[in-house]
């Protein structure tokens, strides 16, 4: 009797007919790409999604308090604006609902194959096709492939001694256990990053005792969060141009923040003052303030926004621990000051396993070359979208496309439109392959790395933006409008066009 969950051997794989475009991932990026392709008249699309639902990171990150730290009117697609956002910064449930509604509005369900976890993506030089094998033993192929699996999709656990010895309940912020009742429990939270500062104010309401373990304090800025007034929703519905105008205003406001976040400028000092003011305003105790004061330049790591994190830490049932963690033990966490902190549950708000050089599954390009090997010394791409040696392959949120100051969806839209232009070029010119030149990729990256050297991200702190060796393969060193401008044009001189 055969085991149904066992992956089938390649020879026995169920082969699906070739599509025009194959997209890996049905999160914001994958669905956005499908919409724009559809609007360009390309409908022969297959989206492979490893889970049973759409939504990617917003499907997985449903922990208490989960919300976006970019205003919703900017953290949404310009081609699918939502007049009904309930707050200026919406919660993850609402964002998840927006994504699901997008699937319905644009009739995307027809393209999506759920529970198809891609295990291998390989380019067939002979036929000019990308072939994706999945865990369920099926094979999908297409003329072009889009990797939209997202950089923040695999939960990461910290490298702490004894992590497997802990016998109590463990929860990761990106895989929340909604059945666990925190009431009356002693809870430890490891991490004080973007997820943690949203979880902590919620958990402190229920837990008997909440202990927060911090390694590096982050810059926390005030969050201008408010409920959307009814009149605004009506205005946006009746006059969509007013919402576009607000979006534009928010976009420009965020663009100006690049001066504080990306480069070291007088505006950086102002931003640091604001951060320190926020801390002083909310925390009276001098020592606690010292513990929460970052010792790196603002912008070097992700900037957080919260109005209720600092107050939560000062609740009588909450304690901030800044001692280094020595190890985890059966009952809890032992810190270097010699105390064993015992817990019923430990929450790991330790972010995601960001791969700076590898890929989530083997990606084989022309001649069988492996992307993880090509990226061994740090990921590189041309304009963050194409990689030399991997014809007809497009990336969303590829190397050096991350913003530190603006909505990631703004960048994503530029990438998606670039991808659509690329796919249309392949179709209109009936190309077997569209392959970026190695020299073009090299020249592009030389420029990027030169510019990155002058940014705050490369100013000496350790962050997930950098590899262990300090190579920045994550961020784009410029304004969002600069990025959009470079993505406006598909310069065919930088590509090799191969006819069938």
């Amino acid at each position, binding site marked *: 009797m055969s085991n149904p969950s066992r992956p089938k051997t390649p020879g026995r794989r169920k082969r699906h007919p070739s599509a025009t475009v194959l997209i890996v991932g049905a999160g914001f990026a994958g669905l956005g790409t499908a919409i724009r392709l559809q609007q360009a008249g390309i409908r022969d699309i297959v989206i492979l999604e490893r889970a049973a639902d759409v939504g990617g990171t917003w499907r997985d990150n449903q922990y208490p308090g989960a919300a976006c730290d970019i205003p919703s009117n900017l953290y949404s697609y310009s081609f699918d604006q939502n007049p009904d956002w309930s707050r200026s910064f919406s919660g993850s449930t609402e964002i998840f609902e927006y994504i699901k509604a997008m699937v319905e509005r644009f009739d995307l369900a027809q393209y999506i194959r759920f529970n198809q976890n891609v295990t291998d993506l390989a380019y067939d030089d002979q036929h000019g096709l990308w072939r994706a094998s999945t865990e369920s033993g099926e094979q999908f192929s297409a003329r072009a492939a889009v990797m939209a699996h997202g950089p923040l999709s695999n939960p990461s656990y910290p490298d702490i001694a004894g992590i497997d010895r802990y016998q109590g309940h463990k929860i990761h912020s990106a895989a929340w256990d909604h059945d666990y009742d925190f009431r009356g429990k002693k809870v430890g939270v490891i991490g004080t990053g973007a997820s943690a500062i949203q979880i902590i104010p919620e958990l402190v309401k229920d837990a008997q005792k909440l*202990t927060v373990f911090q390694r590096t304090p982050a810059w926390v800025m005030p969050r201008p969060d408010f409920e959307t007034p009814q009149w605004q929703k009506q205005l946006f519905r009746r006059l969509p141009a007013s919402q576009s105008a607000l979006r534009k205003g928010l976009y420009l406001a965020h663009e100006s923040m690049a001066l504080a976040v990306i480069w070291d400028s007088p505006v950086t000092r102002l931003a640091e003052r604001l951060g320190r003011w926020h801390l002083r305003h909310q925390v009276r*105790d*001098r*020592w*606690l303030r*010292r513990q929460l004061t970052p*010792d790196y330049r603002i912008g070097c790591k992700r900037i957080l926004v919260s109005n209720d994190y600092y107050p939560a830490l000062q609740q009588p049932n909450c304690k901030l621990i800044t*001692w*280094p963690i*020595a*190890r985890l033990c059966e*009952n*809890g966490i*032992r*810190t*270097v*000051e*010699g*105390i*064993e*902190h*015992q817990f019923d549950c430990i929450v790991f708000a330790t972010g995601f396993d960001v791969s700076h050089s590898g890929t989530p599954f083997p990606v084989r390009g022309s001649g069988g070359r492996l992307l993880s090997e090509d990226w061994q010394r740090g990921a590189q791409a041309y304009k963050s979208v194409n990689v030399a040696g991997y014809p007809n392959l497009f990336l969303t949120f590829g190397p050096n496309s991350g913003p530190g100051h603006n909505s990631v969806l703004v960048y994503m839209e530029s990438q998606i439109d670039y991808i659509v232009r690329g796919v249309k070029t392949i179709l209109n010119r009936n190309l077997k392959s569209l392959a970026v030149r190695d020299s073009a990729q090299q020249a592009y990256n030389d420029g990027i790395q030169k510019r990155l050297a002058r940014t705050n991200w490369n100013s000496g702190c*350790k962050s997930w933006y950098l590899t262990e060796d300090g190579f920045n393969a994550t961020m784009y060193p410029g304004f969002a409008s600069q990025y959009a401008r470079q993505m406006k044009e598909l310069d065919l001189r930088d590509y090799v066009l191969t006819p069938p």
Partner: protein
Amino acid sequence: MAKIDLDKMLAKVKATQWSLADIDWDAPGADRITDEQWPRLKEFMADLMWIEHVGARAFAAMAKKAPTDTLRELYSYFHAEEQRHANAEMALMKRWGMLDGDELPEPNINLRLVIEWLDRYSDEMPVYVLGTVVPMLEIALDGALCKFLLDTVDDPVCHQAFEKINDDESRHLGVGFTVMEMQGHGATYTRMVTMAARLMDPRLILGIASYFPLLNKMRDNVVAMGLSEEKLYECMGKFEKIGGRTEDGRRNPWFQIIKLHSRWVVNRDNRLYHTPVDAIVKVTSYIPRRALPAVPSWVRELTYRPTA
């Protein structure tokens, strides 16, 4: 003591962590403290615990200013380890029935003034000033006091705890002296000018004004407890010997200044130093506790409980 590889030292520090829970604080032997010893030991332990705590705060300040990531992390660990020592010493006090419920023992007034200074100004001090003073305090006070304790107390749990504490301290000193030598490396003139500028910093002058009487006060306490003054001076001599063993070490102006000061302390005939400093010790003893600001909240982090 050879100059050490700080990266290897960090790995070693991480690999040799211990907790209060590793020690059975209820094991037999607590009754070996004699009735005669008990009251003096109570005061002694309180002082010792506070000195560890002061060291902890100094390391916290150094962690903020450390010139490399490795040193920064080492100092963060040392900060926590000094706190662990204070916690362990408090656990011993608890074991010997020296704690009044959950109340923290009171520090003497000179320690209290040093705590106040550390809390206000230590973060502003250059890492090398603290980096030279801390080894002195560790080797002289910590070293002398620990030795005295182990010579006079027969409780096996005390010996077990101090074996671990001393292992930690030897690593702290190893790093401390290496850093002092690092500071001595470079052009003498520049270092002297920088130091002279620092010495004019009123915050540092205040620090010196609280550090001088602390040493004399501790000397008096040590003598009152029955430890010979010479043993304390022997330990201070070690600072001079180890700190000055290399040319780089000797070239560190802060080492020279602390060394000079320790010679003044050791020389009881130096009236020019001891008369005013002893007078300050006396005067400070009249400062009413309520005249001092509330103790900083980091003081409340101390605990004798192995689990929380």
